[in-house]
């Protein structure tokens, strides 16, 4: 079993920490209260989750980007300027940095992990609140939708499936074209050989029949030989030039597509950088609080020494202005007793205003900071797209540079060969015209055979390019791509192999329609995307299926088998119905919604967490449970741990569970 190495710096209350976790096992982190167990696990979660974007609410709820030293649970160690989490596993590396500004950056993370990798009671994760506090009652639909991207993947699936099907036919046609071209080449060789023989036989006959003198015969023979050689040269060069031009066109198309991609990415980067450059001015909180304090003192001084309860009632009434006529009369009278009405109202207004001012300034700052955080991610993605486009352009230029350099010379050679070929053809015709007679049946037979062979040769497949035009991509006639044999093999592949093009799909998942997906695929044809269409389609379909149904299916499997292992449990099974409502079956046969003791709920929560991880973030190697074991009695704890151990071993997942141990003053990691 491999190990996962976790290193943190300035996370929680610890300056530096490093632990080794064993993959495919349950790793128990023990320690006293405040020993840093939860901080370490939240640090790991920060690494897995990375910078907030889509799921900012949950990330902020768990204080994963909290750097405020005055907050009750900042993740950044108080007094330090930057926190760092590094997770090394199977040669892979996940890294997250948490600077004082709260703008998390990193690599290798997956934001969805904030819902799928941890169950914790302090701060409470969404799952914890849903299961232990019953926040949403029996409604657990959120587990299948909160991080699901199924609807986006379906757009890709709808485009990819027809392409995959059409490619089967196109590949077959391409193979047929190649083979008919190959057969044609072989037949041409045969014909050439026979033509040479026929020329010899005709020559002998002509001589025997006295239809030609020796000099003319010799000249004609030489001219015919030269003509054949020039024709072969001419055809060979014509083919080479056509191939080279088709390949260059492919490179030019790659450049055009990369330039278009680059232009969009540059604009996206500009937009993101403008957002990053937004003014970020932290509010002067002490000053704002001083203003509130001053306004409060002013207000207190004008309201005199009325009982605080009366003042509180009047304050609430001033805010809401809702009361029956009799109550309002009493309040007005009490308010008059308070002193100078106008001054009090004015002081009250000022107090309200300065409080609102502080709230608004702080909110504005938080919102701006959050926007800037999202912009940094957007900018990084755009930079990566620009880099990839530049790479494609450089590669296409390099390919074209080397081959295109030969083109002018080849065209010159071709022109020269064409001249020679035509000259020799003319010469042969002229010499043949000088041949007198020669119309014996034998000669006629040989001549007509020669002509028939020549006609057959001309009719053989001579096209050097195959036109690729996919109707599933709605390619117009002028969008057809001419493929040479090599290029076709490179672009179409043989239908096996290839790998899922996850990057392309994932980076173009949101707000995209079928026409845009088709355009993206068209733009990638020259980069060989068709080779990967099969695996990509399969992967997309699998993802859709996972995200749509797998959460429920896995949960139901786990929910049934788990409780079967607990003969003394009152609950016999836990399931999600088709409306994602939680159904629990009890030992008396009754079926209810969410209910049960802490232990039973812990098992339910663990089952949901496992199901969500499997469905949405199967690549994330860690699953963590914090603050739950303590809530279970020894027997239930053992059942949960045994269940987790089974799951860890089967799926190769690293499970981390915290356990309060008042004897361990420092965090200790052991394996179950």
């Amino acid at each position: 079993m491999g190990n996962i190495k976790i290193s943190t710096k300035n996370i929680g209350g610890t300056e530096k920490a490093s632990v080794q976790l064993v993959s495919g096992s349950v790793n128990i982190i023990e320690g006293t209260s405040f020993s840093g167990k939860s901080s370490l696990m939240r640090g790991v979660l920060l690494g897995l989750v990375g910078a907030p974007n889509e799921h900012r609410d949950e990330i902020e709820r768990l204080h994963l980007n909290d750097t405020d030293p005055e907050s009750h649970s900042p993740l950044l160690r108080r007094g330090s300027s930057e926190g760092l989490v590094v997770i090394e596993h199977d040669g892979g590396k996940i890294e997250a940095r948490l600077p004082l500004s709260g703008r998390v950056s990193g690599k290798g993370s997956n934001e969805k992990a904030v819902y799928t990798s941890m169950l914790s009671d302090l701060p409470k994760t969404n799952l914890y609140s849903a299961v232990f506090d019953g926040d949403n009652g029996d409604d657990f639909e959120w587990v299948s939708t909160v991080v699901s991207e199924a609807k986006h993947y379906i757009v890709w699936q709808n485009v990819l499936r027809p392409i995959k099907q059409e490619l089967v036919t196109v590949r077959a046609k391409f193979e047929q074209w190649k083979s008919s071209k190959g057969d044609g080449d072989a037949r041409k060789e045969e014909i050439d050989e026979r033509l040479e023989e026929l020329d010899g036989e005709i020559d002998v006959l002509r001589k025997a029949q006295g239809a030609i003198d020796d000099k003319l015969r010799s000249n004609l023979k030489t001219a015919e030989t030269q003509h054949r050689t020039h024709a072969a040269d001419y055809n060979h060069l014509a083919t080479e030039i056509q191939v080279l031009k088709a390949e260059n066109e492919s490179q030019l198309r790659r450049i055009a597509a990369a330039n278009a991609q680059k232009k969009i990415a540059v604009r996206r980067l500009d937009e993101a950088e403008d957002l990053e450059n937004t003014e970020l001015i932290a509010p002067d909180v002490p000053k704002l609080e001083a203003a509130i304090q001053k306004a409060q003192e002013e207000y207190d001084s004008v309201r005199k020494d009325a009982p605080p309860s009366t003042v509180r009632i009047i304050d609430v009434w001033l805010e809401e202005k809702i009361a029956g006529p009799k109550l309002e009369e009493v309040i007005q009278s009490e308010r008059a007793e308070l002193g100078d009405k106008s001054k009090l109202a004015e002081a009250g207004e000022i107090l309200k205003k300065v409080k609102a001012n502080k709230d608004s300034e702080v909110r504005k700052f938080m919102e701006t900071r959050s926007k800037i955080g999202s912009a940094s991610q957007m900018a990084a993605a755009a930079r990566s797209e620009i880099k990839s486009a530049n790479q494609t352009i450089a590669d296409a230029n390099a390919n074209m540079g080397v081959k295109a350099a030969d083109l002018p010379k080849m065209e010159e050679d071709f022109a020269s060969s064409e001249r020679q070929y035509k000259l020799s053809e003319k010469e042969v015709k002229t010499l043949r015209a000088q041949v007198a007679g020669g119309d014996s049946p034998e000669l006629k037979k040989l001549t007509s055979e020669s002509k028939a062979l020549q006609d057959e040769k001309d009719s053989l497949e001579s096209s050097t390019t195959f036109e690729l035009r996919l109707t599933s991509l709605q390619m117009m006639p002028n969008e057809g791509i001419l493929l040479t044999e090599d290029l076709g093999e490179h672009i179409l592949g043989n239908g096996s192999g290839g790998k899922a093009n996850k990057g392309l799909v994932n980076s173009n998942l949101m707000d995209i329609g079928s026409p845009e997906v088709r355009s993206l695929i068209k733009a990638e044809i020259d980069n060989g995307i068709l080779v990967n269409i099969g695996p990509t389609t399969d992967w997309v379909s699998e993802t859709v299926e996972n995200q749509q149904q797998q959460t429920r299916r896995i949960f139901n499997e786990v929910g049934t088998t788990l409780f079967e292992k607990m003969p003394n449990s009152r609950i016999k099974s836990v399931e999600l119905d088709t409306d994602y409502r939680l159904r629990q079956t009890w030992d008396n046969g009754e079926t209810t919604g969410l209910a049960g003791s802490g232990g039973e709920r812990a098992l339910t929560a663990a089952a949901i967490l496992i199901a969500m991880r499997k469905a949405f973030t199967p690549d994330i190697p860690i699953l963590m449970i914090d603050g739950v074991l303590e809530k279970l009695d020894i027997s239930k704890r053992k059942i949960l741990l045994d269940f987790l151990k089974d799951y860890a071993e089967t799926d190769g997942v690293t499970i981390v569970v915290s356990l309060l141990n008042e004897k361990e003053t420092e965090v200790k990691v052991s394996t179950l």
Partner: protein
Amino acid sequence: MLVAMNEHIQHPIVEVMNHNRLHEGQKVSRAGYTSGLRFIIDVTFLDVKAIVQLNNQALSFNHEFCSLSSVSISETLPIPLDIPTKSRFPELGRIMLCVRFTDGLGYTDAKKIRNAIGTQTKETKDGLDPIGTGKGSSGARFSEEFRSMLSDSKWLRRFPSLTGVSKGLLSGAAAGGCYDLSYDLREAVRQLTESSEEIWWSKLDPDELTLTPSLLVDPSEKIGSKFDPANYHHLEGDKSDNLVENMKNVEMEQTGDSDIVEDLTYTLDRMMRGRRIRKQVGVNQGLAHGNESFVISENVILPWIAEEFVNCLGFFLMTRKPKYWRNGQCEVRVVQPFSSELIEVLKEAD
């Protein structure tokens, strides 16, 4: 020597620049002589190790006509500067202003094309130098203060060599021109920081003791200094707008491609925004009593001036001679002495 260098470094040379000089005291236009060659090699997609090897290989070049070989790193700047480039922009160094010739693009008359090709090199040699004075020069477009940030200009002709370096590469007409200049932003940053005190920013209150001091720099008000970007060539209001309009008209005459004009307009609009963004500095930037001026100059003024300095030069390249300089192919490059540390920084940022 061209071929010898090409064979020696075993790596595609994308361009050769020829440092063309005149004999001292020469007053009239006539052919100069080559006093140096600059070989441009694209290392964008090489890793650090390969670049270091290439450097060693280039430095070991020996030839009877070559007395000195040196290697520099040139980085084509995005215009406007993006955030990472701005944050590492050196406050002094060398900069190259590069243009590609239009070769009479847009003309249909053979005589006009010949004329354009015949004059573009001279027009460029005179007009591309931003600190040049005299007939046909461009120095007057910039304030004396702006020009003081630039010095020591050197003229080079450009010969692209996509299909390999051959013996006769430099004997044909150049495909473009380039000025290599020294630049130094330190004085501008110093003066602006000093003269903006109590206008854009104020020192920390010595009586206010706090562990987390912070200062607001609000440059929204223009100040008298000519170093204030509001006075740069690209932010001259109607005058700048007219230059842009002229550039667009020329582009339409040359290519008639509205997409290109749209792209150019987009870039110029971004360059000419003249944004004066408020910034806050605090403990993250090392702010403490007594070092306010230093922190503000390093973290606020220098990146801002760098951005507007490059914008100004970019604007100049795009609008000065659109008839002769191919728009969209002008480049501002920053040149720094070779060091493996610099390569690592640039590769990390890539």
